[in-house]
């Protein structure tokens, strides 16, 4: 399988802190006696989006669709296969090891599992302050006060710094993770399902904490989640992923009020409304998500799509802007006018 699909390089626009262009990440499947690469898992198969400074982009999609891989490839925790990742106009994957290490302070990651993401053998003050010391972000004398300050911002009393992770609850641990990320004073944070391991009341606390911190520090978030209500609460823009592709992407209001892609509609119909009189009109998808190692031809969603056309089976759709800042990848919108049910109006 060749990976040198050509893409048009984009020019940096200073409004955007992050520009992702045709990003692909294929994982090789080694097989046979000599570990020959026989196939690839197309975890991320050419996605394009931009994140504006100081905003939050929500990335939703079902399990295994490549959300986490997108986050990690952007941070260069895994190497890309092709495409562009511009962070402040700088290609992240072109940085040398030393440059990357210095750049890491500017973009941080918050993990899904607050239990395995903290080393059990270090006190939390050390966990938070370790990288600060390593990067010489604050003078040595002020380090202790700085750590206490960051911990306070994240809702942790400063005297916790000598305690070890096993003494904390899940919510507190997630605060420690957030403190670790924010201690480096980043501009951009990838939040990889930061609340899905927590119970609902704690989720709200953490989300509000993230929102508050964003306001204080002018942070930009890439918020990865499969929980639509959380994403709706925190995001400015939303991207919907299906099997390695960004099927729809646009402002939160546009997407929620006018979902275009059949997958987005199916997804949003599953949001539960806390109202017993509300009749849910769920669109139930048939079958399960296909293997990214052997994706369907044409539009990857056509095997499960209720509006599947003959064209969808052979021809992959391209990203089209339907309204300003609202992009969709679907053959339904090939012509200027929607083929049916007027979804593409306005």
């Amino acid at each position: 399988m060749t990976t040198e699909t050509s893409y048009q390089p984009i020019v940096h626009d200073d409004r955007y802190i992050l520009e992702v262009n045709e990003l692909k990440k294929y994982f090789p499947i080694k097989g046979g006696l000599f570990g020959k690469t026989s196939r690839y898992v197309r975890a991320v198969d050419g996605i394009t989006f931009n994140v504006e400074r100081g905003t939050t982009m929500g990335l939703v999609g079902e399990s295994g669709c490549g959300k986490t891989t997108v986050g990690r490839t952007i941070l260069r925790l895994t190497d890309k296969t092709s495409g562009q990742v511009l962070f402040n106009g700088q290609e992240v994957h072109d940085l040398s090891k030393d440059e990357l290490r210095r750049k890491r302070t500017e973009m941080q990651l918050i993990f899904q599992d607050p239990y395995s993401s903290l080393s059990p053998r270090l006190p939390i003050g050390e966990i938070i302050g370790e990288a600060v010391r390593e990067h010489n972000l604050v003078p040595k004398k002020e380090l202790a006060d700085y750590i206490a300050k960051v911990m306070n911002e994240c809702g942790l009393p400063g005297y916790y710094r000598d305690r070890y992770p096993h003494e904390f609850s899940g919510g507190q641990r997630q605060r420690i993770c957030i403190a670790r990320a924010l201690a480096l004073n980043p501009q951009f944070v990838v939040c990889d399902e930061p609340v899905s391991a927590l119970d609902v009341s704690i989720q709200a606390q953490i989300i509000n904490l993230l929102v508050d911190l964003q306001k204080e520090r002018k942070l930009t978030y890439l918020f990865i989640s499969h929980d639509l209500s959380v994403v709706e609460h925190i995001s400015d823009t939303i991207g919907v992923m299906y099997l390695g592709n960004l099927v729809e992407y646009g402002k939160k209001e546009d997407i929620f009020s006018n979902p275009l892609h059949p997958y987005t509609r199916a997804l949003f119909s599953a949001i539960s409304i806390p109202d017993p009189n509300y009749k849910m009109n769920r669109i139930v998808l048939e079958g399960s998500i296909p293997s990214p190692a052997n994706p369907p031809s044409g539009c990857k969603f056509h095997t499960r799509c209720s509006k599947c056309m003959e064209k969808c089976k052979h021809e992959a759709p391209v990203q089209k802007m339907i309204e300003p800042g609202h992009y969709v990848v679907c053959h339904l919108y090939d012509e200027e006018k929607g083929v049916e049910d007027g979804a593409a109006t306005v």
Partner: protein
Amino acid sequence: MDNERKNDVSLNSDQRIKVLSPGMLVFKRFVRNRLAIVGVCCIGFMFLFSFLGGFLMPYGEAQVFTTYTEMLNDYAGVSRNTEFRYTLKDGKDFPLVARSQLVLARNNGETTFSSQGVDYSFTEVSETCLEVSAMQRVAEANSFGGSVVISGVDGFTVSAAFESAFTEAIESGADRFELDGVEYIVSGDKRVSGAYSSEPVALASYNVFDFASSSSTNNFDFQIAAETAAGEFDGEGSFEFGGETYMMSPDPDDDEVINITLGGELYAQMSDYIIQPIESDVFISLDMRRLIKECIADGVTTFTWEEDGVESEYSIVRSNDRWTIKRVQDTLVVDKYQFPSAEHPLGTDGNGMDLLTRIMYGGRISLMIGFIVVFIELLLGVILGGIAGYFGRWVDNLIMRIVDVFYCIPATPLLIILGSVMNGMRIDPQLRMIYLMLILGFLGWPSIARLVRGQILSLREQEFMVAAEATGLSVRRRIFRHLIPNVIPQLIVNATMSLGSVILTEATLSFLGIGVKYPFASWGNIINDVSDVYVMTNYLFVWIPAGFCILITVLGFNFIGDGLRDAFDPKMKR
């Protein structure tokens, strides 16, 4: 400042909760484990016992204890002679086969016999002595109807005098004739007969000659003179030999013994007693021999004899027709298998060394070998396992295949073979100990390498490692601050457990004689002394203490290992 802050907070504030590090938690859990504490006590005791005890004991590691004791040692054997004893003429040979042929011929009443192609004849010197001569055929006589033809053999020229003497002898039926002082023996029938020249080769006698001085020995010529004189002996006699006149007289104590005197001095004694010293370099003087003979004749069982100014006591023990002379003597004896006493609290072993001291020094060596071997295992295992786990790919593959190969090596046969090779090469015991540690270490690292590799593989994928990378920590810091501390618990448990098994292996090898060797002690080679059932059942103090030390030490290490494993297990409640 800390105190001030404490005073500010309220009594139920969680700021007052004592903070425990994971290490402290492990320690607390460990201390609460009773078995583990027993193990620690065992090992601590063993350390004190071995390392301090060696200094306190007054004895050395390989000090052998000996004492002088009076022992009855065999001194000489005495028997009465009932067989011919042979005295050879100088330069002549009388083989064993011929000796038995002689006895046979004499019993059959013959005077000649042949053995291995040589013809022999013998004549009686006296009743108890025979002179044996080898015969050589010099002439042959063939008679045809009254006329005798005589021809020489082997270049012997037949003179007229010889011919007439030979013919006369044949005709008269004589078996020997003399010519010019040489005696010829005639043998054969009427028709064909031979004349033989004869040469004496040996004397066969029932008599035993004992000489007064160790420098004079028996010889053919002396003996034949003495035997001839003895044959005619009737209470008094004499013979000449070598220009001297020897007088013969019966011994005053024993009539059967004849004393031979030279110039009034006792020169030799003729009897049928054989007195043979047990050790070859001992000369038993004639006077002592006389005493022994007298004692035997009188039936006395003990006597004293002074030799070189030392008076010793002798006793005579009879068994059948043999007597054994035993001497009471001070002998240096190794104190082997001494039962426990104030001097040797645990007794002594089969080499006469103090067992308690040996066990102390053995403990040093066993513990040291245990620790060094485990250290080598850890060093190799952590480095190779760490490399395999961290770098992965072909490096991992290569190292793990090496590990697989090491797992396939049958350790016990290999150790036995290498031990025997070192035995064969006579390697210095100290060097050997080092080799033993190296070999055990080299055989033991694969399991640790596997453990470390597995741990690192699983830790590498943990999110806190990803977090460490995402926060831009250096590789060194990631390995040493995040990876290693998380591998160490398993390593400690594993190392503690393998300490016990290494000590066991070392003890086994030493027991088999292919581990630690004398003069160095180890618990294994102390038990090695128990090589038979007799020692095992009768000298319990030899092997029980050393065995007990091994048991306690291995048990201690295993208890500590178990305790550590439980303490490290985060699932255990505080």
